[in-house]
């Protein structure tokens, strides 16, 4: 009904010549009075012409065509879609923070620097590592920072001949892509039947050419690498470094310190474990920590505290710079707020509840949707289905059908080693009632699969659009108006 009256138009389609949303004071002279003719823009850009109210309506309507964590449960594995406390929304953008310029005199930005320094210190405490940089803007950016830091370490330790990075087949795609971007050859190793690292395969792959082994802990099938200490020793024995992808750190926070495992370098995701929102895809923040022997090679500058003054310190052995300035500061402020709201006991409870919730979902769905590895999991569980016994219904159909029930889809078809994977990470901030509702939805979808599979295969039915033919977009790309 509404669709007939209010079309879902692009802003440019709503545009009418002469409308505008903001007005500025008039300059006294024209641009041509200041710049040579050849330096001037010839035609105005084709931007929409909308009133302020048009613009507010347009973007408000668009926002309403989104699922969001504030409204729905996101059972997205490996993404840690947990509640983003509202206090941080305001605190992270207080005017003195928002207006602080990266080239302002240090005496004028002591408040910002103090927060960054304290955050570095807190991250050191919860991981046991010796130093942290806050520069990386995202998890993958952190990975690249970490691997280039490892490379700088090896270059300084006669390790220039080390050309390989070992990555398990369960790793996020960013791991191998990162190693390649850092100029390394990727050596993929298979996982053992229990879902953990195959130590024999690792042993065979480790040589004096190995620079780094990248491990996600807990791994992407939701299991802790029980032999991590032994693995670290194997890695160190050949002179390589152990990199820990900390995307899943929500399972460990307060429970264990990666430095104790023998981890040399790791990244954390402030937009996962530390309560910062995902913003529809970013900005994130991916701080990188390093053990004592690797710390000098982290990017520069780091924030230090000397003689009562916080300062941005240059570092002579540093690998360089990963970003024009010092990090996604507004996201770092959120991370700092998070770590100040919890002490050691409550952090531990957060991890425990994350693990409890994942196991509850796994146990309740057993029989209809079984875990690929039938054992207790950490903060997420990876389920699998067999389309042959499900009337030809695939994981993607179940994901789309969940949208109709008011739930976002789980992470699907990942990790790649699990066929038809459905990866569920409830996080600790969902209540038992919400988990029960999700479980009921999954059970009803299972019933539909048996009685009316077509309704599942054609889902979603309740979204602003029906199922999208993604291939149609790539055939003749339309990427702009």
């Amino acid at each position: 009904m509404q669709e007939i009256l209010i079309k879902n138009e692009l802003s440019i389609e709503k545009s009418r010549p002469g409308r505008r949303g903001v007005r500025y004071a008039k300059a006294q002279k024209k641009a041509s009075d200041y710049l040579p003719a050849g330096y001037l823009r010839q035609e105005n850009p084709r931007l929409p012409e909308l009133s302020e109210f048009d613009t507010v309506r347009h973007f408000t309507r668009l926002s309403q065509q989104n699922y969001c964590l504030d409204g729905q449960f996101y059972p997205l594995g490996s993404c840690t879609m947990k509640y983003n406390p509202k206090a941080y929304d305001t605190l992270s953008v207080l005017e003195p923070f928002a207006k602080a310029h990266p080239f302002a005199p240090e005496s004028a930005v002591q408040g910002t620097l103090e927060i960054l320094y304290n955050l570095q210190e807190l991250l050191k405490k919860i991981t046991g590592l010796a130093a942290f940089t806050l520069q990386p803007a995202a998890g993958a950016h952190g990975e690249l920072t970490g691997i280039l830091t490892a490379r700088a370490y090896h270059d300084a330790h006669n390790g220039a001949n080390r050309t390989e990075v070992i990555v398990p087949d369960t790793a996020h795609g960013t791991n191998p892509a990162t190693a390649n971007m850092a100029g390394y050859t990727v050596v993929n190793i298979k996982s053992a039947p229990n879902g953990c690292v195959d130590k024999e395969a690792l042993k065979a792959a480790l040589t004096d050419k190995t620079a780094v082994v990248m491990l996600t802990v807990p791994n992407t099938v939701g299991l802790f690498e029980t032999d991590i200490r032994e693995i670290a020793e194997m890695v160190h024995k050949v002179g390589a470094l152990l990199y820990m992808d900390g995307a899943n750190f929500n399972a460990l926070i307060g429970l264990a310190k990666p430095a104790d495992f023998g981890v040399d370098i790791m990244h954390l995701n402030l937009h996962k474990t530390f309560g910062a929102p995902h913003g529809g895809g970013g900005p994130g923040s991916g701080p990188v920590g390093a053990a004592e022997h690797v710390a000098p090679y982290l990017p520069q500058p780091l924030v230090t505290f000397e003689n009562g003054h916080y300062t941005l310190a240059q570092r002579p052995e540093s690998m360089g710079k990963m970003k024009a300035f010092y990090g996604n500061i507004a996201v770092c402020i959120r991370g700092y707020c998070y770590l100040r709201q919890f002490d050691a006991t409550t952090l531990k409870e957060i991890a425990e509840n994350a693990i409890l919730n994942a196991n509850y979902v796994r146990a309740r769905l057993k029989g209809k949707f079984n875990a690929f590895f039938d054992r207790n999991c950490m903060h997420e569980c990876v389920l699998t289905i067999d389309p042959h016994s499900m009337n030809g219904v695939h994981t993607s159909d179940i994901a789309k059908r969940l949208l109709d029930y008011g739930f976002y889809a789980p992470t699907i078809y990942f990790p790649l080693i699990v066929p038809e994977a459905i990866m569920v990470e409830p996080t600790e901030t969902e209540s038992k009632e919400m988990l029960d509702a999700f479980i009921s939805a999954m059970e009803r979808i299972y019933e539909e699969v048996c009685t009316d599979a077509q309704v599942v295969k054609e889902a979603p039915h309740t979204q602003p659009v029906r199922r999208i033919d993604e291939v149609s977009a790539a055939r003749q790309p339309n990427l702009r108006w």
Partner: protein
Amino acid sequence: MFTPTTQKDKEEMLQKIGVSSIEELLQQIPSQFLYPTLDLPHALTEAELTAHIHELAAKNKPLKNFIGAGMYEHFIPAAVPALSSRGEFLTAYTPYQAEASQGTLQTIYEFQSCVCALMNMDVATASHYDGATAMTEAVLAAARITGRKEVIVSTLLHPHYKEVLTTYTRHAGLTITEAKVQTNATLAIKELQAQLSDKTACFVLPTPNFLGNLEDAQAVSEVVHAAGALLVAVVNPISLGVVQTPGEYNADFAVCEGQPLGNPISFGGPGLGIMAAKKAYVRQLPGRIVGIAKDHDAKRAFVLTLQAREQHIRREKASSNICSNEALCALNAVIYLTLLGPQGLREVAELNLERAHQLADLINAIPGFKAGTGAPFFNEFLVSCPMTAKEVIEKMAERGIAAGHDLGNTCTAMKNCLLVCATELRTESELKAYADALRGI
């Protein structure tokens, strides 16, 4: 409480799982690691946290800002944060489930479209971490496209951008050299021409350059293309309201720091990396791109597309490792550009131009100080001082003014040089107050 699970819930859940305690679920973690001692400060309540953060914020000193050098203070209309901070945008995930993410996807499509219009380019990506990483990824794409390994950058590229480029590409087999500058702090195009060869993958042209001057981009483009190399333009997005666009001078890639488009400075981050390119290079672009598709009823819908370039599909063969980007900052930018429209963009650009030139004139009237180098500039310019820039900055800070960026930090030969910026936010009386203060030091 952050976690809603009650003791009763916990007991029921453990029973369903079939274990007697949480510890039983943790058995996969070797006990030697479990429950380490953590020396953390006591937990603050929300009220205590709020007071604590306000206290820290008060330690930042509000100075009237005349610093640019890569991050610029512009007016942000109230509707920008009001809309982008809606929970529906702020707490949404990456729009992989397109049917449930049409809002975010359409805003990205509109962002890409506005970027293309602003730059006069064919295609744009959904965003990158910041201007420096967007530029670096464009250089890497240019090397892949041309199969060449040598990169030339202007000496007047932002020093931090140079550092990021070097850090990222140190192991990519690229050599990076710098192109020389003339005495008026613009590019020596003849010398660049001699430097270019059939091994040059691309030339990186910042305009305005780090010292604020606009380059003769048309002439640069011609010599770069004559050598079969690609042109990567690094621009100021607000300047494009009046200044010749990358598309007009035939740039192959156009990148910029998009922060000036509706995003606060926030001590340098989050920034907004913007990348646009010619259509021919679309399949070499890094990162997410949104396109139009059809749904089951042949209705228009938006999806992430050309994903075969990306890490989650291609793994080590991907065009980049980028995953998370700066979607929310891109949303700020598209709301900002929608509010301004073509007319507002022109007006704000003209005001920047005017305020910076007015300030330069005021400074030139002060004995011992010289503003500008004689080359055209936009909203930022070089000031030579009769003392060190450091001293000027300290004395001006005492008067409540952030006088500019100390160029001595980049190059000791420029220790008496200051980079000064005036955007549309600096009123004429503030410009006058700046000049009066400078005269008084």
